[in-house]
């Protein structure tokens, strides 16, 4: 174990946190949508993938990465708005499985449309020039782009937190999550709140997609892999809990990164083992309310 210095472990820990930041962004949208609408968005992975492809399209059209960071959440968010308004909305009140099944079918359609537009093979996605290279973070050299992903996730979380906690619209959203009927009685158009939440959640998924693109490249199937991993995050953190999604997302990222250092062949399986342990010990997750399980 001579090669495993403390520095290497520290750097790997940071790499895990950067990977975790992507999970956090993905899971937070999933959690937000579930918390408010009680819809498990099985198309969340597809929105993530579409985000990466919209980013790719912006680069192909001669735009730069920074433009893509602005355009992608807007475009993907608008797609989310359309999906909620015309496909998910007719299913409210028809049982909890139907929106899930609908978004599952939708993910097939979205993946296939992207295959038609961009082909079935993947594309590399260049790290923007400004963020290439590594930086000395005191314990060792660390890729600049991963630091940027961590920072970007922190900014998104901060903005989201301010929006939910400090604005009057955020207040309505939080109230709607707790008891939509009372909010409706008070004269608020709850369906419009749900529309906005779905748009915001999918927009963040799109942003996560374009942020992940330089790390892993872009392929049509990239969504289904992260969807399964994000389910682990939501189960570990507790569904509908934003704080839980953040901590569990970072934890899952670190677990993946650490096992790929010590036992690379177990890296993919380790997080599912983590989920199994959490299910056995604390089935509602770290921060989940016990009632939400039913």
């Amino acid at each position: 174990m001579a090669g495993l210095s403390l520095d290497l472990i520290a750097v790997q820990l940071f790499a895990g946190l950067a990977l975790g930041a992507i999970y956090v962004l993905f899971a937070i949208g999933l959690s937000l949508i579930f918390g408010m609408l009680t819809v498990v968005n099985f198309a969340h992975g597809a929105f993530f993938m579409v985000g990466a492809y919209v980013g790719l399209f912006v680069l192909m059209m001669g735009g730069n990465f920074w433009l893509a960071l602005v355009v992608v959440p807007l475009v993907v968010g608008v797609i989310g708005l359309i999906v909620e308004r015309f496909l998910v909305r007719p299913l409210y009140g028809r049982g909890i499985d139907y929106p899930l099944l609908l978004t599952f079918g939708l993910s097939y359609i979205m993946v296939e449309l992207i295959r038609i537009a961009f082909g079935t093979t993947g594309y590399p996605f260049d790290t923007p020039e400004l963020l290439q290279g590594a930086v000395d973070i005191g314990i060792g050299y660390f890729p600049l782009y991963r630091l940027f992903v961590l920072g970007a996730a922190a900014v998104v979380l901060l903005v989201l937190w301010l929006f939910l906690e400090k604005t009057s619209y955020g207040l309505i959203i939080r109230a709607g999550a707790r008891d939509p009927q009372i909010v409706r009685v008070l004269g608020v158009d709850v369906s419009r709140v749900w529309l906005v939440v779905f748009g915001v959640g999918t927009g963040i998924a799109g942003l996560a997609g374009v942020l992940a693109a330089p790390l892993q490249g872009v392929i049509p199937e990239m969504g289904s892999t992260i969807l399964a991993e994000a389910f682990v995050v939501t189960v570990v953190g507790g569904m509908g809990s934003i704080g839980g999604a953040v901590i569990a997302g970072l934890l899952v990222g670190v677990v993946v990164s650490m096992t790929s250092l010590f036992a690379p062949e177990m890296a993919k399986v380790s997080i599912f083992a983590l989920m199994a342990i959490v299910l056995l010990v604390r089935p509602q997750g770290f921060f989940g309310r016990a009632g939400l399980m039913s």
Partner: protein
Amino acid sequence: MSDVPQTIADASDRSNSLFDMAVRHRAILASVFLLMFPLIMPFKALAANILIYGLYALGFNLLFGFLGLLSFGHAALFGTGAYFCGIAIVHFGLPWYVAILIGTLGGAGMAAIIGVLAVRTRGIYFAMVTMALAQCVYYLFYQAEGWTGGENGLRGINVRVIDIFGLKFDFLDPLTRYYVIAAFVILALFVLSRILASPFGAVIEAVRENEARARASGYNVMLTRLLTFILSGAFCGLAGALAALHLSIVPIEMLHYETSGMVVMMALLGGMGTFFGPFVGAAVFMLLENLVSLWTVHWQLIVGAVFVACVLFFPAGIWGTILRRIHK
């Protein structure tokens, strides 16, 4: 016998009793249909595929339609059945019938492992947990290359002759192959029909309709869920074992997420909670896949659109809608 003219009520009574009789003998009717099926199907290999995936959907429907638990990880049960059957033949040289038994038990065993964890959760959580655990199974089989062939799949499952009590059947002949597979599927149909008609079957539906009431009536809800999941795993494992024999290879894709999703689509297209619906769903799905892929490689687009339309407008599925029409 009175000479009073038949009233409308009488007529509907009669059609209802005909309907009831059909329901009572559903396994026989379904079997007769499956025996005639290759006569109307131009492609025998496709007919056998519909049988296998119909059985897979049948096992899934036991859980989803009758118990009300939506699993997104059934590929793990189907794939384990296929791999166990294949490994028994390739690595241990066991005869085909033992291999099928091992595949069936493998599916049930995998269901027991996944089930112990998953039945602790309910509703939407169940779908997520089963999907994540199935993904874990996928990676495990993927990495056990020595046993499973890894990315290339498990090759060399060559069963040429089916030998029953001295009678030899040529398994390479498509029609014979269909009827060998059909024999197992029909057996499964009768077993399933018996399970559903038993007191345990009533408990399954009681848990779906009202969990709290079932618990208050003294039934162990968790155990019912686990047992149903294991039974579902046995049916899916059998389907997987038959698929391994039919394809003579187990591709790793059998464990993939899309195989889990496919069975959800089949069950919903056909009509969840109906006895024969899964077969209808599997047939429609596979015909759609085969026909659409004749003119475009993007058949998933059409299948996805049909599925979304089905969720929106025909939640009872094709067979469920037909049954409802007849029953009116």
